[in-house]
């Protein structure tokens, strides 16, 4: 039986900009089960990190309005005070960030940084030391004793990311949030780190919220996928469904823009235009349709129901345009040769 770990309902986030609140995240619904990897995919500005920060309680309460409900193991997170959040952050929720160099303290030895994350015991105790060594071994650092005495600058990018993962795992969290965990790494190191996260997740049966803009990473890691555009989820599906049977025009456009399987003689599909600005987001429409030049205004401006439409039990899509959406025949850029 699947155990629900994180349950987010109608989560909206608005930032105060020049005295007015602008919606950056609009009514996001998603849930993560224990042992599940859920990927949140989208381009910069789509709101995926905004959602993660709401789960971690990292928004500045004076500048941000967070509404809706986020439940972790049935405990409501929205509305908690900073102190109450401390009970979850780093304890039930572990975090892995994109840039380990700026997330690690440059003046502190690796071992001490991991020990700091272990909340229960006195830092110097033998027990904590052993636990630090074990965590380093868990993330594939064989030379744990030496590494725990080193400083972040002495380690390579891949090693630093392993240390970050060790810190995230320190208290055996139920949920791990990985925000672009491999974006700054070389391809071979990326593969190693992804394999490591996967192994640990299987061993600990944790849930993972994986935030990425890289569809390849999604295909390698995720069980289910949520595609985000302009602060909303536009498609929600199992990973097989999403890649084999993508529906929403945005998802299909992204997959088409990927160069890896395109014949070098053909042009890539470039999505025209840009993501609308925060103060220009009318979330009652499907905002992506503005970027499909061949759709008429009626279709683009049609109001869209807030509920995602069901394709099948593993697959939900925003709006109705997906039912009839076709790409125009590729324009011939070769003009006359």
């Amino acid at each position, binding site marked *: 039986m699947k155990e629900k770990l994180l349950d987010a309902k109608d989560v909206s986030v608005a930032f105060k900009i020049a005295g007015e609140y602008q919606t950056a995240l609009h009514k996001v619904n998603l849930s993560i089960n224990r042992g599940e990897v859920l990927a949140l995919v989208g381009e910069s500005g789509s709101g995926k990190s905004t959602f993660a920060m709401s789960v971690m309680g990292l928004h500045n309460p004076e500048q941000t309005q967070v509404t809706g409900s986020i439940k972790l193991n049935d405990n409501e997170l929205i509305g908690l005070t900073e102190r109450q959040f401390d009970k979850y952050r780093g304890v039930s929720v572990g975090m892995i960030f994109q840039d380990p160099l700026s997330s690690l303290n440059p003046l502190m030895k690796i071992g001490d940084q991991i020990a700091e994350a272990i909340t229960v015991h006195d830092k110097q105790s033998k027990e904590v030391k052993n636990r630090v060594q074990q965590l380093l071994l868990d993330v594939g650092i064989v030379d744990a004793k030496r590494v725990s005495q080193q400083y972040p600058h002495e380690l390579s990018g891949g090693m630093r990311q392993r240390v970050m993962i060790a810190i995230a795992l320190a208290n055996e969290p139920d949920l791990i949030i990985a925000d672009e965990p491999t974006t700054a790494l*070389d*391809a071979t190191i990326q593969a*190693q780190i992804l394999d490591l996260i996967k192994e640990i997740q299987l061993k600990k049966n944790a849930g993972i919220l994986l935030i990425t803009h890289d569809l*390849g990473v999604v*295909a390698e890691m995720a069980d289910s996928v949520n595609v985000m555009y302009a602060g909303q989820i536009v498609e929600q599906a199992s990973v097989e469904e999403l890649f084999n049977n993508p529906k929403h025009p945005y998802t299909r*456009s992204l997959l088409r*823009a990927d160069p*890896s399987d395109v014949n070098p003689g053909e042009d890539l599909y470039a*999505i025209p235009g840009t993501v609308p600005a925060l103060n220009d987001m009318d979330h009652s429409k499907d905002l992506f349709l503005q970027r499909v030049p061949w759709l008429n205004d009626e279709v683009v401006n049609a109001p869209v129901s807030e509920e995602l439409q069901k394709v099948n039990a593993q697959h939900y899509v925003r709006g109705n345009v997906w039912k009839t959406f076709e790409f125009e025949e590729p324009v011939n850029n070769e003009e006359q040769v």
Partner: protein
Amino acid sequence: MSELVRIENLKVYYPVRSGFFNRITDNIKAVDDVSFTIEAGQTYGLVGESGSGKTTIGKSLVGLENPTSGKILFEGQEVTQIKQKKAINYNKDVQMVFQDSQSSLNPRKTIGEIIAEPLKSFGVPNKIGAGYGGERSFEQSKVDERVLELLDIVGLPARTISQYPFQFSGGQRQRIGVARALATNPRLIVADEPVSALDLSVQAQVLNFMKKIQRDYAISFLFISHDLGVVKYMTNNIAIMHNGRFVELGTTEDIFNDASHIYTKRLLSAIPSLDVSQREAKRVYRKKVEAEFTQHQDTYYQQDGKRLRAYDLQQVTKTHFVALENGGV
């Protein structure tokens, strides 16, 4: 096909100084004896992980780095040292596009001033893309005219001319960088990770655009990247670099269909695939390659102190070269 640039036995060493007299005690071999040829109108891919020396090659080519030894020939003329580059005004023919469009555009200059800069140094050629040498004019009116033309080529409106870099998105800034590189009618553009900071949809715009200017103006690219998906789409020939050495060199088909060096295989196996059904199989294969790489290093590398040094390249087919002791046979 005609040869545009030939690089022969290029070495770039950085001295390591130590001891009381601060003498040179060792060298860091950033680029260690590499040779390759870029054909006119083609794209040459340089692939490797961070620290492999690919950017150093790019920098030597445009003159931001003085090679320790070896030769760079541009249409048969030697341009290895910066002095030689200046003598034939080589820098108007070879331009560079950088990875980070934010830091490679001066934030206090307008886009018009940024694009005009190379035109002021080298003059305005008669026509974009045509008659590479030719008459060049230094008149201000000509400069302004050309800047507008260039903005039009990269698809930006005329009002851009008086705007500043921060007013643009990453993709637009990257196109501004390309416009600047195009200004002097270069024959070769060194593009160092030009799209790795961009989102997928914007990346597609920039890549399409690079292909278009290549078609229209027969420009060659040296395309430096760690992203093999992009490289496969963009290039005709590829060199795979590791620790300052070429480990494999060939046409794009040679590298993708017939990789022979373990390091190439390792890079290829690390590309995430969009085919979900292959996920487990790929993971197993990746582990296998990784094990082969760590356990059989003597087969693939000479030991050079602590660093792995690839063997010299051996010819396998007419176009395909591999750094194995006896060609891998």
